[in-house]
């Protein structure tokens, strides 16, 4: 079956989120639209502060004051999700149909609750299991995420586990109710390199076994390349390019994507020099008019003062007036 024909699980339309700070209003998301279909993996890539994590928090209903969603829609199977925290509809989705694995496994688990209790409460709450059932199922889940002696681990506290183990526990919690969508918010950033590979493998295996859709948030393009069907690149609170991963990696259309790829070390291409994008991302308190990448872009011209439209790139779209033009010297892939 072609994934493109199935209706999306999750659809975000023109989402705008802002945070009030002493320095001013930070426009964290400035019109983000994306869709995730059942069983597909979407990579959300960008540097820190680009809005990746805010997007995931918005999906999870975790935006709280001083932050707020000021515009746009988040739809789950066609039903609105924004503001559904206190409705029966919302209560059945978060933690059950959509679940999350956060970046830092060291602080993401409650230090005073046993591993078993933290997995079990999801099962008793969402699936109405009894304590005994939940305990048995929790042990199965721990085994499924590759933790040995699961029965014994159930009674341990987070501080008794290593970082990689804790992230496995987080994943066990996330898949406990067999969700349709898993949001992995930089799940490997805080881990050792060897452990990173194991966790990624685990996610890939679980996706196949459970038919999960995954939104994979990362700043590491290398991870996205091997893992994600589609990729969206974020810059300054907007998605600047989106498309099939294979296509984007071969033919990046947006100058920022081109620069990002050029500044990543790749093993399959020999390079003399890594590319360096001059300047800093713009302040989101007063972002520039038009294209937000304009101040750093070698292709910037007068037309870039107008907000760019999404140009078709062949494998997706790019928000750039000069899409598909090679932007950086010595870049010819």
């Amino acid at each position, binding site marked *: 079956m072609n994934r493109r024909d199935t209706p999306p699980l999750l659809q975000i339309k023109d989402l705008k989120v802002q945070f009030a700070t*002493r320095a001013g209003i930070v426009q964290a998301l400035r019109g983000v639209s994306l869709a995730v279909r059942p069983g597909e993996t979407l990579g959300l890539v960008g540097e820190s502060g680009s809005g990746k994590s805010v997007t995931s928090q918005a999906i999870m209903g975790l935006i709280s*004051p*001083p932050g*707020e969603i000021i515009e746009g829609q988040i739809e789950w199977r066609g039903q609105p999700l924004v503001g559904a925290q206190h409705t029966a509809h919302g209560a059945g989705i978060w933690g059950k149909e959509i679940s999350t694995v956060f970046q830092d496994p060291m602080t993401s688990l409650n230090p005073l609750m046993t591993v078993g209790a933290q997995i079990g409460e999801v099962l008793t709450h969402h699936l109405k299991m009894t304590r005994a059932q939940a305990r048995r199922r929790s042990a199965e889940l721990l085994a499924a995420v590759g933790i040995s002696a699961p029965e014994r681990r159930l009674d341990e506290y987070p501080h008794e586990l290593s970082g990689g183990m804790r992230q496995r526990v987080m994943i066990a919690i996330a898949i406990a109710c067999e969700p349709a969508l898993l949001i992995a918010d930089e799940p490997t950033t805080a881990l050792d390199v060897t452990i990173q590979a194991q966790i990624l493998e685990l996610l890939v295996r679980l996706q196949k076994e459970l038919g999960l859709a995954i939104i994979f948030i990362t700043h590491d393009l290398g991870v996205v390349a091997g893992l994600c069907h589609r990729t969206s690149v974020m810059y300054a609170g907007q998605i600047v390019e989106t498309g099939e991963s294979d296509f984007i990696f071969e033919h990046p259309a947006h100058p920022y994507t081109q620069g990002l790829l050029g500044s990543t070390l790749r093993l399959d291409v020999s390079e003399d020099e890594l590319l360096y994008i001059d300047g800093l991302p713009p302040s989101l308190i007063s972002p520039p008019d038009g294209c937000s990448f304009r101040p750093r872009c070698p292709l910037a011209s007068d037309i870039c003062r107008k907000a760019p439209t999404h140009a078709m790139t062949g494998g997706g779209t790019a928000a750039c007036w000069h899409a598909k033009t090679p932007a950086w010297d010595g870049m010819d892939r």
Partner: protein
Amino acid sequence: MTQQQARNSAQATWRANASALAQELWRDKTGLVSLIILVGIVAMALFAPLIAPFDPAAQSLSHRLTPPAWLDRGVWTHPLGTDHLGRDILSRIIWGARLTLLIGSCVVLFGGALGTAVGLWAGYNGGRTDNILMRIVDIQVSFPGILLILLIVSVMGTSVVTLIVVLSLTNWMVFARFVRGTVMSLRQSAYVEAAEIVGCHPARILFRHILPNLITPLLVLSILEFTNIVLAEAALSFLGLGIQPPATSWGLDIASGRDYIYIAWWLVTFPGICIVSLVLSLNLFSSWVRITTDPQEREKRFAHSYMSRRGKRS
């Protein structure tokens, strides 16, 4: 840049900082009001002989227990009334501020100096010195000062000097703990390590690199300790273990007014209001200083007030 220019620009930045701070204070009304009350109380103590209408010890038995002026039988010569010996309550309150502030300042000074010295020493040397000193602090902290005070007062009797010594001896530990903790963490910071590698003299490192970082938090701590000492002095004077007549103190006045509580409420009420105003203003002002000097706290304060303006649930 010539020296003159450097001095001018330093002055200009100082002025800019001061005016920014003043603006911030103006916007935060609780901070402003508490500062005004504090300045008022200090001025009252300093100029007591000029502003007090009567000698605080002058008795006038014919005017005993005159109520405050706005009540029946009240007279405007004694706006807050008189006590059981016919002494003017307003004048006693004005004079009473003196000993309270004097004792508070002395104790913060001595206790603070002792604590800071011990903290610097323990924190900088670490190891065994630190172990022993901090164990002493731990033990003394776990015993409320009042035990030592009861013991000492019962043996040696009371005087202002005893009071200062005893309160200093029971209030230095907070400073020691705080300074020691900060010094320990600063010692491991890159710039102090760099100074050590370069061969800076330990004393220079302590006074030049470490002490400046302690000034604002020590100020906040001192203000908070000051409130504790004001309350302790008032309580001791009330119990008869602190300031003794003929000296005046707010706590002492409340103690003597206690016997007349059934017929003259003003004897205990007004000195009490003074203690509360002083301590509350100190608390509010110190929390304003703490928040204003800490960028994270400022951001939090902003977020909280923003959230409450928007009226949303977190």
